[in-house]
């Protein structure tokens, strides 16, 4: 009898009758099969978007940032909005894989691989925006502190924009390392059961020669734990630093100390929404409903309603402080140009999508409905895009000088650029879903006997037993 197990009061993390081999079969066999029609359609659409994005960006690089509708007042528009939006989405992966690992949340095992992949792709998309916003993108390497012939004149280490360079690149690197070290054993699984020579060769290279030695597993566990420990403050620091881009300036609506926690909560909120969007589709298409269960969706929806409410509190705090601070600029910003004014509609979209609609998740039935979860995940993503748009554009379109007040709407290359990052994101995700184990196989096997449905059911007679009788039986078991 396997004595370490989870109470049957907790719902199983893996449904159905499974053993170790079945887990491998379920998760690895989609890699070995030809992708379905839907995959090709989706992949083709993504590639088209990516191509259109590349065209828009080329256009922008060739003619300069003037082709965007940015102007003297609104210097940050769709580009930085999209940057913050994608980085925010990129927060859920590391949160799931790192923070939930430290909190010993078993349900993370079903979703962490895909969520981490999503993080990496989202950060890749995010990085494009500040880079191409530079205009002379061929000089992007100027942000690196390297010995140069200009003095050497160094970068400004006091600038939050430079902190961003370090934060985003560190975040990307560490997430990638964390993700890949987790993938190595699973690639070895694909390699060892591969039937074709090409697959054996490629997964052999990708698995780095992993054999599953006990000593290696011991080191692997230690590595994962420390990387989780490092990533936990890292994930919080990244969006904190992104919020510093705004908070350290003196623009009304930006210059607030609430920004770091508010941004981090918002990032987790939007990230979990994107995880839901992707996983609801993935579990359906790859038939992984047994591994990404309704319980998983429920858990993520709980995080969504929690972080959504934190974000809601932050919105109200902002409104309160705009009045309470006595600063007429803050007051005008929030009450005249955000909640009202020509761009006021974006504020109310944000409020509706982020604060009001997620409240449906207080109801268990809603949290456990796949359809509601999917629709809500889209709504939250829209809402969080508008949050960044509201923060950036409504603060900029009404500045201290009424003569430079403008309205802002994007030009086609800005929209094209944004669509292009969707292309990049989904192209990567489609490739990932086809060629990578979308669920951490080894980790599922690790929790299978404690929280798999068929293993839990075996424990029912013991659970129903009288405690004293159980203790008595066990004392004589050996």
């Amino acid at each position, binding site marked *: 009898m396997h004595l370490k197990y989870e109470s049957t009061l907790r719902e199983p993390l893996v449904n159905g009758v499974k053993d170790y081999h079945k887990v491998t079969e379920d998760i690895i066999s989609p890699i070995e099969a030809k992708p379905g029609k839907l995959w090709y359609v989706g992949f083709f659409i993504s590639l088209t978007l990516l191509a259109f994005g590349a065209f828009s960006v080329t256009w922008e690089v060739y003619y300069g940032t003037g082709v965007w509708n940015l102007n003297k007042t609104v210097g940050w528009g769709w580009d930085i909005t999209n940057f913050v939006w994608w980085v925010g989405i990129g927060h859920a992966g590391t949160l799931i894989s790192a923070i939930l690992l430290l909190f010993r949340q078993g349900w993370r095992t079903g979703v962490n691989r895909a969520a981490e992949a999503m993080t990496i792709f989202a950060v890749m998309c995010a990085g494009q925006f500040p880079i191409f916003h530079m205009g002379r993108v061929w000089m992007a390497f100027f942000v690196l502190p390297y010995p140069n012939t200009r003095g050497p004149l160094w970068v400004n280490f006091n600038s939050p924009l430079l*902190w961003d360079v370090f934060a985003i690149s560190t975040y990307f690197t560490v997430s990638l390392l964390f993700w890949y070290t987790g993938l190595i054993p699973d690639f070895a699984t694909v390699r060892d059961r591969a039937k074709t020579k090409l697959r054996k060769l490629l997964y052999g290279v990708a698995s780095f020669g992993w054999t599953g030695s*006990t000593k290696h597993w011991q080191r692997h566990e230690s590595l994962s734990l420390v990387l989780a420990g490092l990533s936990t403050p890292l994930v919080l620091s990244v969006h904190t630093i992104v919020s510093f881009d705004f908070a350290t300036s003196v623009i009304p609506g930006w210059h607030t100390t609430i920004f770091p926690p508010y941004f981090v909560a918002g990032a987790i909120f939007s990230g979990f929404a994107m995880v839901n969007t992707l996983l609801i589709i993935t579990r359906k298409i790859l038939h992984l409903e047994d591994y990404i269960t309704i319980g998983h969706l429920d858990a993520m929806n709980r995080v969504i309603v929690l972080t959504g409410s934190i974000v809601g509190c932050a919105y109200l705090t902002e409104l309160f402080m705009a009045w309470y601070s006595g600063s007429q600029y803050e007051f005008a910003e929030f009450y005249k140009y955000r909640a009202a004014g020509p761009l006021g509609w974006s504020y109310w979209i944000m409020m509706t999508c982020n604060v009001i609609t997620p409240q449906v998740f207080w109801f268990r039935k809603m949290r456990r409905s796949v359809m509601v979860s999917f629709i809500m995940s889209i709504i939250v993503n829209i809402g969080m895009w508008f949050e960044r748009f509201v923060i950036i554009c409504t603060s900029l379109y009404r500045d201290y000088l009424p003569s430079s007040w403008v309205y802002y709407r994007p030009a086609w290359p800005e929209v094209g650029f944004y669509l292009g990052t969707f292309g990049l994101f989904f192209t990567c995700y489609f490739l990932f879903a086809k060629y990578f184990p979308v669920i951490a196989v080894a980790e599922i096997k690790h929790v299978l006997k404690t929280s798999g449905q068929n293993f839990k059911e075996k424990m029912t007679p013991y659970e129903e037993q009288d405690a004293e009788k159980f203790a008595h039986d066990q004392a004589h078991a050996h």
Partner: protein
Amino acid sequence: MAAKNFVVGCFDDEAVLFPAVKKVRAAGYKIHDVYTPFPVHGLDHAMGLRETSLHTAGFIYGITGTTTALSFMSWVFTTDWPLNIGGKPHFPLPAFIPITFELTVLFSAIGMVYTFCYLCQLAPGVKKHVFHPRQTDDKFVMAIEVTGKSNAEEIKSFLASVGAQEINEQRAETGWWYGRFDKDDTLINERVTPLNA
């Protein structure tokens, strides 16, 4: 690198594996390694492996990052090119914290992953002997080294008595070599003269 002879036993369940490891060790056989499809907690202790010090390495890499970031930024702003930025001090410690933190994490993570790969001898193109194709799937594979003192047949029957399902003898390379998993490297094993020759 040298090829050695092994008796290999496969177990279906970790619950059988644990007592088997204990018995094999008590009988005095030398367990070369146990290969498992997932980390089996406590197996390292059962096999008498020492704790890994990888986290200590991570800590050292981390402080290296901290020191690098702090000393470099201080040197740039106070010595190499003291620049007046809005009348702020030349050594603004609070403003250095974000980059210092990021570099600490970066150095630690990269250093640890490289150390992990070095210690476990993992790299693209590296090949090792796989005792059983399902050791990364659902089998727990124990490889016992056949030394001059032990007898392969004896180990086989002992493994069978402790619950191993599939038992065979293999001659295998203990280390790694550059190779492709789609090709059999027979040459490697033949380079060394067999033990019994």
